[in-house]
């Protein structure tokens, strides 16, 4: 199951939806593709027992376009990867809440794409636009290649649990 999260009227906040729509073009067999435009309050019911990849924009101060791949079952989402909105919980809080309430799926990989511009608008910034194809490729490879895929980090954190790369 792949869930693209975002708000397409807030510029780079729409990148998760953009990636999801690009994946829809690929007709990936046996994969449910879901667009999520709210804070994800229904996700615990939707993703029950599934193997899930979530894609969303983040604002952490990293270079725009940086892609971080996190295994949400192996570790909590780092606090600096903020998915927050001004009106409700972000997906980080939903994942952590789901963890405490025992509602995480069987497998949960999060692709966090660093955004630059979250103002009103429907266009992605150049840096984020160039990340879209890479994320699509990585996610496709991950789905088609089973669970063996691991990204190589250009300059990732030392924990080894998550990996971030800049395009």
């Amino acid at each position: 199951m792949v869930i693209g999260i975002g708000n397409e009227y807030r510029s780079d906040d729409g990148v998760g939806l953009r990636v999801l729509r690009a994946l829809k073009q690929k007709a990936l067999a046996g994969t449910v593709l879901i667009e999520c435009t709210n804070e994800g309050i229904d996700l615990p019911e939707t993703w029950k027992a599934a193997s899930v990849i979530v894609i969303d924009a983040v604002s952490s101060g990293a270079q725009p376009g940086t892609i971080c791949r996190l295994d949400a079952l192996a570790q909590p989402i780092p606090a600096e990867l903020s998915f927050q909105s001004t009106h409700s919980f972000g997906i980080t809080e939903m994942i952590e809440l789901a963890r405490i309430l025992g509602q995480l799926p069987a497998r949960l990989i999060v692709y966090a794409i660093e955004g630059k511009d979250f103002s009103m608008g429907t266009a992605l910034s150049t840096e984020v636009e160039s990340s879209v194809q890479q994320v699509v490729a990585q996610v496709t490879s991950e789905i088609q290649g089973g669970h063996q895929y691991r990204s190589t980090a250009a300059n990732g954190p030392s924990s080894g649990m998550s990996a971030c790369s800049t395009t």
Partner: protein
Amino acid sequence: MVAGMSHEVAVLPVPGGNDHNLPLAGRTGQTPFDYPDAVRMAKDYPDIVKRGLQMKKAGNAIVSFLGGREVHPINVRVGGFYRVPAKQEFNQLAEKLKWGRDAALETVQWTAQLAFPEFEQDYEFVALQHPGEYPFNEGRLVSNVGLDIAVREYEDHFVEEHVPYSNALHSIHKGRGAYFVGPLARYNLNFDRLSPLSQEAARNAGLGQQCRNPFKSIIVRSVEIVYAFDEALRIIEEYEKPEQPAVEIHPRAATGYACTEVPRGILYHRYRIDDEGLILDAKIIPPTSQNQKIIENDLYRYVEQAIDLPEDVLTWQCEQAIRNYDPCISCATHFLKLHIERE
């Protein structure tokens, strides 16, 4: 309204913090007010948090059912909807809302037993008022100090001003200064318009017909959520599918004025349109902007009475004092930097 109230539910399990003056916090064990956020609270109070989330989902269900999508609904149009349901299509939604109403009643009971600081000011409460309903989208603008105007007169009585220390504009009543919008304002000015069930819930929670302590806004919000579910079920019960899903609209060059009670208070909106119905200019003043000054006043007064508390506790309580207004700011737990200069 439930859809709007569903937003408030997300706030309910995100309480403020520790107050050493509160009797509950003095005992061993943590109270709901001791948690910085819902995620940490969920460890010890999972059922309360789950209930809050389920209520929010019930509210979202109304928007998806009628609006076609939870966010940016696509089934709404000027004059009404593109498609309206048949009566029996509401059945599944009604079941969710009945559950929600019961959950909301439990939530009122739960908030009522929390401990709150004693804090009341002489507020001017401003809200919509309507003869036939708890205020939502129609009525006159009234206050507890004699305001009684048509919505179109809003800009004759309220103005936004610059203050030197902030980018945010302050809304003030011309002549009287700061004013207070939101659940307490609605409740205090319209208690008798609440449904009998929600009035009873308020009474059982120990609320009188007036509540002037902003820390208790969480109880008032819960009462409003009871009302919202109750009213939604009443509407469903009395629903007859209309012949047309929308009324016919013939635009003409004019200015339109409206005021809507959204969860945080009155939202004033004005649009000037041309004879094809295109908007030429718009003015939108949301409730959080309107509460800016009163939030600052509350902080000033609260700090006056609480200044001797340890700084970390005081910071926490100030965050809570701000959260009483459920302002449209990030859900970041510690958003406040407190800087105290002592002489």
